[in-house]
């Protein structure tokens, strides 16, 4: 590799997976250069541009394994050999003492497809545990469940992201993409330039909402009712696409009856959105023959997230805005490999290729690829929050990769206690995250520019991230870690360290499954600017647009699900009179493990805050910048007030990137969606008071 050659790759952060070039520098790191890629057309946000900051910076990067000393109780440097011995010994001891299901595995939506696949295989084949899940459960799992229910298949967007600019109207629900995936904003700008309309649904007037032709600002947790109210008006105005409903769907009468029980004035009462604004939304959405509804974490991170997304899907189906060009429902997946991460077996109920773990045919196929007896594969295990909640009780040992639940899990103080109660914790990460700092063994692993692997972005486009530089000495890949641990536990073969070899095995395992990667190769990805799954054969072109002929259900028809509004698990009352909603800011990412270690990003977003309306601030006697305490039934957080008219007076907002006193997830409610097992991050009841400065 010459010092000047540029390597084509993708950003380490969000699900957009912008294309970028990396040029190695003399200092042993890389410089980010523009790359013309269809998703981002050269544009990058501040997070992507500054990503090399996490590679080498002094005191940031882990460069050697750490093992907790029995003598001092501190994490101390150790050799790779000693550290891996300790991990194997720890996992074996727990299994011997408490059984295979006492060992848990927790993965992440930032892991490459190869790592996610290998981790799932490691759990089921080597550890023989059912207890594996990942932080993607906290991301888009409600949309995934609703997708499956309605369309028989879960792919974030059924069309390339560029199609958004060419539709007639977009309803964007609970997404602040101007801050969370800035390069995607161009598609909304182009949409408007093309004469299209944008409706944004968000309790906050975000930078994204500022772009909208119509901003609907419902109470947190009421977008299910909002969607039903819009569907009601669609019926009332005679705007149902009867032919589409007749030919391509099932279940309309029941779904319609549910919508009719949500008449506009009732919906106004539930949501706070005026009926004239509902009428205007329907006028805009149905005023053009093509339209899309895109959801993100707002509607999804609720204890009724699956039904909420289902209600938005029903709106698309009733108006014939699905399974047609430039129309449909889509989910803006959050994490970098949020899509691929949920397809290849690190989810509690899944096997590679988006197969179901309780399907005998799926078990037989995958067991065949793995060379094991299908009966030896464990069954479905606990979902992410339930798994974390069981730590120290049923689950005594944990192997954790690429996740930081101390900051990112709901009811985080409780989860931190559960982690502390473990007999054994091993963490693979790039930096010493808050969770890694609690581990018995920390294994420093490669990231992004230091390794090769595939990710699948929010479009279902499989992409290749390429290695640009060598990792620091003392850093190994996750695949290496699994290979050595497997060997320690009696599996000398079956865990390749070469990513392409792992990918080839993943292709075979996914063959014939819903997310079929069998026709995708590293070479094709490079030559074709990514390949959209399903791609069942070398000769298959991939599938940029799904459902144009039929939906992925047995009979090819989409299914309406009759959904009714219901309150959030926790509604405000006299003691906790306000709503809390949480989210992200422009310059930070997720638990901040990476971005909080980049100086430029920290300067832009140095810490947590509590956004509140001037009327509320006035009532509390709080001025901008003064510390306020936010208390829920689960704990208390303190952060400076940020007084702003961009939020409802009955709601406060906190970003969730930070640990410590201002940790938003200390407050959040782990009430779970019955279908997706998604916790209710987006709404809980709190009390807000002035705090002592």
């Amino acid at each position, binding site marked *: 590799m010459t010092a000047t050659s540029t390597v084509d790759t993708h950003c380490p952060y969000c699900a957009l997976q912008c294309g970028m070039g990396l040029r190695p520098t003399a200092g042993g790191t890389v410089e980010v250069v523009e790359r013309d890629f269809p998703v981002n057309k050269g544009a990058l946000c501040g997070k992507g541009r500054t990503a090399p900051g996490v590679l080498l910076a002094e005191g940031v990067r882990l460069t050697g394994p750490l093992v907790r000393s029995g003598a001092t109780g501190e994490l101390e440097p150790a050799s790779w050999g000693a550290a891996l011995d300790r991990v194997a010994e720890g996992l074996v001891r727990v299994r011997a003492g408490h059984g295979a299901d006492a060992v848990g595995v927790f993965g992440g939506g930032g892991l490459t497809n190869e790592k996610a696949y290998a981790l799932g295989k490691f759990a089921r084949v080597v550890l023989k545990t059912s207890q594996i899940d990942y932080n993607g459960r906290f991301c888009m799992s409600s949309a995934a469940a609703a997708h499956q229910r309605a369309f028989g298949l879960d792919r974030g967007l059924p069309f390339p992201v560029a199609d958004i600019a060419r539709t007639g109207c977009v309803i964007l629900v609970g997404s602040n993409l101007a801050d969370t995936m800035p390069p995607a904003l161009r598609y909304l700008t182009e949409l408007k330039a093309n004469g299209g309309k944008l409706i944004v649904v968000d309790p906050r007037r975000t930078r994204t909402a500022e772009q909208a032709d119509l901003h609907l600002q419902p109470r947190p947790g009421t977008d299910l009712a909002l969607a039903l109210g819009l569907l009601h008006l669609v019926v009332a105005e005679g705007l149902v696409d009867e032919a589409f409903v007749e030919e391509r769907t099932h279940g309309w009468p029941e779904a319609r*009856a549910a919508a009719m029980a949500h008449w*506009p004035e009732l919906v106004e009462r539930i949501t706070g959105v*005026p*009926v004239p604004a509902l009428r205007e939304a329907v006028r805009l959405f149905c005023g053009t023959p093509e339209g899309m509804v895109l959801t993100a974490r707002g509607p999804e991170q609720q204890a009724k997230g699956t039904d909420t997304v289902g209600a938005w899907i029903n709106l698309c189906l009733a108006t014939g805005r699905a399974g047609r060009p430039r129309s449909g429902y889509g989910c803006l997946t959050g994490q970098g490999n949020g899509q691929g991460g949920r397809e290849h077996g690190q989810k509690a109920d899944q096997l590679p290729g988006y197969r179901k773990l309780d399907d005998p045919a799926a078990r037989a196929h995958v067991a065949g690829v793995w060379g094991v007896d299908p009966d030896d594969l464990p069954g479905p295990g606990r979902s992410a929050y339930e798994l974390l909640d069981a730590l120290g009780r049923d689950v005594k040992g944990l192997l954790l990769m690429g996740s930081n639940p101390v900051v990112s899990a709901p009811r985080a103080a409780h989860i931190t206690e559960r982690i502390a109660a473990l007999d054994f914790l091993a963490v693979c990460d790039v930096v010493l995250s808050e969770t890694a700092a609690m581990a018995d063994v920390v294994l420093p692993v490669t990231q992004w520019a230091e390794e090769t692997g595939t990710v699948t972005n929010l479009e279902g486009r499989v992409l290749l991230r390429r290695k640009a530089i060598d990792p620091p000495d003392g850093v190994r890949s996750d695949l290496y870690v699994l290979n050595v641990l497997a060997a320690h536990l009696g599996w000398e073969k079956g865990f390749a360290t070469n990513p392409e070899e792992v990918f080839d095995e993943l292709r075979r395992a996914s063959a014939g499954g819903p997310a079929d990667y069998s026709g995708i190769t590293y070479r094709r990805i490079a030559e074709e600017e990514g390949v959209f799954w399903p791609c069942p054969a070398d000769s298959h072109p991939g599938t940029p647009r799904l459902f144009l002929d039929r939906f992925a259900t047995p009979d090819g028809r989409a299914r309406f699900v009759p959904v009714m509004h219901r309150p959030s698990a926790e509604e405000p009352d006299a003691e906790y009179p306000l709503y809390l909603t949480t989210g992200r800011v422009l310059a930070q990412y997720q638990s901040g493990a990476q971005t909080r270690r980049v100086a430029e990003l920290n300067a832009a977003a140095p810490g947590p805050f509590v956004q509140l309306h001037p*009327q509320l601030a006035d009532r509390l006697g709080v001025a901008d910048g003064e510390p306020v305490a936010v208390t829920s039934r689960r704990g208390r957080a303190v952060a400076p007030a940020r007084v702003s008219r961009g939020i409802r007076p009955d709601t406060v907002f906190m970003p969730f990137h930070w640990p410590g006193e201002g940790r938003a997830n200390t407050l959040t409610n782990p009430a779970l969606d019955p279908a997706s097992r998604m916790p209710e991050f987006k709404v809980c009841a709190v009390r807000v008071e002035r705090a002592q400065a």
Partner: protein
Amino acid sequence: MRIVVVGAGMAGARLTGQLAPCGGVEVTVVGEEPYAPYNRVLLAEVLAGRYQADVIRLPDAARGAVRRGVRAVRVDRAERVVVCDDGTVVPYDRLVLATGSNAVLPPLRGLFAEGRGELPGGVHAFRTMEDCLALSGAVRAGARAVVVGGGLLGVSAARALAARGAQVVLAQQGEHLMERHLDQAAGQLLRAHLASLGVEVHTECRVRGLHHATGAGRPVRSVELADGYRLDAELVVLACGVRPRVGLAQSAGLDVAKGIVVDDELRTSDPYVHAIGDCSQHDGVVYGLAGAATEQADALARVLTRNGRNYRGTRALTRLTLNGPQAMDIAAFGETTAMPGDDVLRLADATRGTYRKVVTRGDRLVGGILLGELATVGELARAWEGDEPLPDRASPLHLLTDNGGS
């Protein structure tokens, strides 16, 4: 637990829907109307031709047995059974009365024939699907229709009939439309709006009698006003309010005032009998509103499954949307005509036909109107529902305009 619900209207259907997913309850619904439960709020829209009648059916959530077209005639509280008109006896552990309300029929000469309960042909109340379908079947373009009553129901009916092309006259005894909800100025704007839809409104105009042809069906011919003037009419809609249906409760010896008296657990004077919806009276209030009925049903479901808060009353805005080429939206609550000493903030825009008003007494909001401009309806509803002292420094302008307040 065997739960028997008498009444398959909105409250009864909502309750059974809420109880359906709960284990350990077995629900039987006794419903007198022959139709599947429907959304009464939308009847005016069916009459206006905006919806087909079957579209407003409520979701079929009643997993328990629904006995449609069966009337409960007696409650034996000692035996805990309901006796029905088909001779069946239904035992209960908890009984829920959701019997709703009946239309009030005004004392008009000629309304009832000697010794008979049938209304003259073409004369209808406007309360049930049966009323709605009968009106809908009878109305035709150019038909002369008289609506008696200028409250919310009368206004809705007049708008719906006008949408069907009828020549509508609305006769109201009071000084302005929707007197219970609106002040004079708002009533005037509403009247102007109705006029633009072709509805002729007569206020301070008492109807004293009906004239009908003799013979089969006694088809109506005209409506006679207090001054003797006669308005020709082929259709007459009686929209003079509703009255809780309490007969079953009364004969069972339960406490009944205007409605069946219930506490915060929606319990009547018999702890095994509950009442919800239009037939009930909570804390002195008979709501007669679908929103309140829904909230009572939800609260009773919580009570019956021991899962959450009791009912604390409903403080909802009264809402009316008059659909049409130019929709008119109205929201109102509380005392909208100020008493001496009250503060009034009012924004009137004659050009756009909008009107907004709040009445405050001391630090409390006591009433308000939004007509034609509803941008702040959520804010206003929150303030009214919250019933908290208003901030002393800020003017309540933010309750009327998006750009108001801090």
